[in-house]
């Protein structure tokens, strides 16, 4: 990989004292951290540490009981998924969450639903603005398809694709929204070495080409240390470390809780 100057900018997302519980079970306890524009921010931690819950709080699938979320200066008690998507936060899921009854192309097209302004009557008649929007968005989607090199499966139903390609299609769907922040929940889980390398390259390319801010959960320590700018470490729903990969690597609590155990 060529050395790339990453243009980490201002803090655009800040979570303060987030606590989340399901029934009586505490998933997250008093967690605070921030994300800077254009950076790749990793969240790591053992299984059940609350990593996915953290992403779900950021894009509003879960509503924390305590704490605030400040995104681009706007402070809220919690997000809601639509507001998150509308303000440029896209995400992928740990267990692939593609729309299984649709083709790759249609899946990615759904990623652009917020860009479409025509109403259902226009769409039913399929003239004028509806058709024009459809074509413009198709072109944008084709660029994403090109970018992620999935031209050959464009019209395939997603259910027929192997796992690695499904993950890539999910990334494509997220990218189609032209997000300013991308939440990736274990984008490389379950992949072989080659697929991981490809995915790493795509993540870095996206970051470099579009300047997309990334919040990334990943188990593969090598990958995390290689590509992220800063790392948050969670354990049992609490934050136990935060800093550059090197700082985190040297943090005794982290070593005890995580690195020592898992790897």
């Amino acid at each position, binding site marked *: 990989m060529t050395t790339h100057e990453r243009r980490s900018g201002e803090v655009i997302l800040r979570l303060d004292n987030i606590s989340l519980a399901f029934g009586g079970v505490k998933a997250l306890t008093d967690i605070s951290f921030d994300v800077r524009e254009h950076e790749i921010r990793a969240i790591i931690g053992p299984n059940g540490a609350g990593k996915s819950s953290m992403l779900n709080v950021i894009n509003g699938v879960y509503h924390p009981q305590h704490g605030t979320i400040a995104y681009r200066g706007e402070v809220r008690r919690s997000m809601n998924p639509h507001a998150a998507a509308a303000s440029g936060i896209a995400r992928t899921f740990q267990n692939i969450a593609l729309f299984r009854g649709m083709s790759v192309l249609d899946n990615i097209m759904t990623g652009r639903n917020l860009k479409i302004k025509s109403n259902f009557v226009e*769409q039913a008649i399929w003239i004028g603005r509806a058709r024009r929007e459809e074509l413009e968005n198709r072109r944008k989607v084709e660029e994403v398809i090109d970018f992620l090199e999935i031209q050959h499966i464009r019209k395939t139903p997603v259910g027929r694709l192997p796992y690695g390609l499904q993950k890539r299609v999910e990334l494509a769907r997220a990218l189609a929204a032209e997000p300013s922040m991308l939440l990736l929940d274990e984008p490389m889980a379950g992949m072989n070495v080659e697929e991981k390398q490809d995915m790493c390259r795509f993540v870095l390319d996206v970051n470099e080409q579009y300047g997309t801010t990334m919040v990334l959960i990943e188990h593969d320590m090598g990958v995390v240390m290689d590509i992220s700018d800063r790392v948050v470490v969670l354990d049992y729903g609490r934050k136990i470390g935060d800093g550059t990969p090197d700082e985190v690597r040297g943090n005794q609590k982290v070593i005890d809780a995580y690195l020592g155990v898992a790897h």
Partner: protein
Amino acid sequence: MFYREAGQFKTNYIDDSAIFPIRQDRIGFAIILLLAFVAVPLFATPYIFSAILIPFLILALAAIGLNILTGYCGQLSLGTAAFMAVGAFASYNFMLRVPGMPILLAFLCGGVMAAGVGIVFGLPSLRIRGFYLAVATLAAQFFIVWCLAKVGWFSNYSSSGVITAQQVEILGYQFRTPASKYLLVLGIVSIMALGAKNLARSNVGRSWMAVRDMDIAAEVIGIRLMPAKLLAFAISSFYAGVAGALYAYMYLGTVEPEAYNLDLSFRILFMIIIGGVGTVLGSFLGSAFIALLPIALSLLVGFLENSIHLSVSKSMTSNLELMTFGGLIIFFLIVEPHGLARLWQIGKEKLRLWPFPH
């Protein structure tokens, strides 16, 4: 085999996302349209029009409506007939109470009324899912039909509850003959089927399918579940409503609540299961299948009676019909859950790849 596609390439996205991207399909469809609009009116008998073709088309329209809700948006409904009833009664009342109301506008208004009622009964879908929702739609079925029967205003205080539908007249032309009724229904159904197809391939359709396949992911990419689901209920009910009005005006000739019972709802559900969930084509195939099956059965029974002198009573035939419907539903759900439309698609794929198997 007949698909010779080499050389059919697309140089723009309009062609690429066309409803029939393959030339042979376009030709085939044009032939079907030609047959339906020209050849059939020339040769069909009044019996075929009024007993087969007209109900086939109208129920296909209702099935498209149900398919929008169930097939595309994934919300199972057992109350289609009730929304048809709303359409029929609303059209009747618009015709009755608005002087000079054009009939087509009355159908449209009937559809819109049904859409409104559909939205009301769609509200629970925001909180409940799956067959809980299906059960909730049964409430619509029972409540609406009861309402239309009990509230006299709807039926203009008719003593029998059975009202004769007004004469259908457009620009002075009176649709009296079966052939003319058939052509009017065909025209309306064709246009609305095109609209449904367009919706299905646009953002609205994709949003529905996203909600159907994985609602949380849909929400996360910015699709608002409430408007998406309510829109599906509204449009589905609109289609059902127009179909209901056509059913009353073009098929039954009367407007009566009992015509829109639970049995009709089930029949329409069967149409989309047999025809194919989530396809417009399937709605037509399913409707044709259900329309033709009793005829085929009675032919078969007649044949048996003649050949082996088996005497089959009328009720026996209707029971056989019930069993055949039930059996077919079981068969299709087990063997081909995507119905006749998928079978057609598989066959077509085979023809496209011929002589290769895959």
